[in-house]
């Protein structure tokens, strides 16, 4: 097979196109505006003018009316089918967007519960309320596990709560409980893994790459998840600062973007 033939086979894939109703529906869902549509012809004009036009052509008024009615019914059926299919697609997309938002809301609720229960545990220990310690540990453990489950449902959300988790985790270290430590480690490991994955995709300098290797060793080899999370957050802060510097150094960035858009 010649190279040209091979390339033309790849180019034949251009025939793959998305369903236009789906395209409009997704756009409406994302941008919240109705898709641009042509103004439909008024039914009145359509019904009154078609027989006239057809009778002018064929000189047979009855045939013209029959044809117009048939056309009208066909258009009705076609519009109904299109409308039904559009409705189905819209419902599916609205559901997808709603489920993503629901996951974010659930994560925030679980994050709040995690903070409350961790702080509560620390206070119970500090006040030496021995009769409440078991209950507080149990509540904190459940909150940690629920939060871990939330993050596992959509690991992309890990970044949004990583810093808060790192700040809150110290409350859990006030007591030496094996079960709580196990749950807490699972939470930190889940967060670490996702953040390492994100870092591996980022553009890094050789030094930053070295730091990532160190973090990977800390998390996967030494299983020091809390230290790993702190190192990741430090590296992320460095990357953010670097990104801000780049933005400040390149004020024409916006124009470049607009040029791209204008293409």
């Amino acid at each position: 097979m010649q190279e040209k033939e091979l390339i033309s086979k790849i180019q034949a894939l251009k025939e793959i196109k998305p369903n236009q109703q789906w395209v409009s529906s997704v756009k409406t869902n994302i941008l919240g505006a109705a898709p641009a549509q042509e103004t439909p012809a008024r039914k009145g004009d359509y019904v009154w003018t078609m027989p006239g036009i057809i009778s002018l052509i064929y000189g047979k008024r009855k045939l013209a009316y029959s044809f117009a009615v048939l056309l009208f019914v066909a258009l009705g059926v076609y519009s109904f089918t299109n409308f039904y299919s559009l409705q189905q697609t819209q419902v599916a997309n609205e559901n997808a967007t709603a489920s993503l938002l629901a996951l974010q809301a659930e994560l925030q609720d679980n994050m709040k519960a995690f903070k409350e229960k961790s702080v509560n545990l620390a206070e119970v220990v500090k006040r030496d309320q021995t009769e409440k310690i078991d209950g507080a540990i149990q509540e904190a453990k459940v909150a940690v596990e629920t939060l871990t489950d939330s993050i596992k449902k959509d690991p992309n959300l890990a970044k949004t709560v990583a810093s808060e988790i790192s700040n809150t985790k110290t409350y859990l270290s006030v007591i030496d409980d094996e079960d709580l430590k196990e749950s807490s480690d699972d939470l930190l490991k889940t967060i670490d893994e996702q953040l390492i994955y994100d870092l591996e995709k980022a553009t890094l300098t050789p030094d930053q790459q070295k730091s990532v290797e160190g973090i990977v060793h800390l998390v996967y080899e030494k299983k020091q998840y809390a230290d790993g999370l702190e190192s990741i957050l430090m590296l992320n802060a460095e990357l953010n600062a670097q990104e801000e510097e780049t933005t400040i150094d390149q004020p024409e960035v916006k124009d470049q973007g607009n040029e791209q858009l204008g293409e």
Partner: protein
Amino acid sequence: MDQKKAQFSRIYDEYIEKIYRFVYLKVSSKETAEDITSRVFLSGWQAYSSKEINNPRAFLYQIARNTIADHYRGADKEKTVPIDDAPHIAEKGKSIHESAALSADIEIIKTAILGLKKDYQDILLWHYLEDMSVKEIAEIMEKPEGTVRVMLHRGLKSLKSVLEA
């Protein structure tokens, strides 16, 4: 915000077909391709509305690559292909027979491309299907242009041997 919305609306119109095609060629069903593509543009809009994006094309393809990777990593990874899920190709001006033949050709090339290394798949599709230059591909993949050229050559060679096997 209205200006951003108008800009993203233009980006959407320009890239929806390309991103959908790119995703469709990497997954096994039309429904999955639609789901992933809508996620790509939803994430794209969320990011675009809050910060400046220099290169929307590179940005959207990067999200698409990550979303596809997440899909294959996730628990909802597909195990089956719906029987009625033939590729939905544009049939304007083509007979049923021609469409069926074209559909079969597309399936053959799609399967062959899926058999290649992930980076080769992306490079071949971007260069030969979406007419992206080596420089643009190098930017998206964060690799030197020379490396992309070598990968393009090797990818084409691999595709040839898969199709001839």
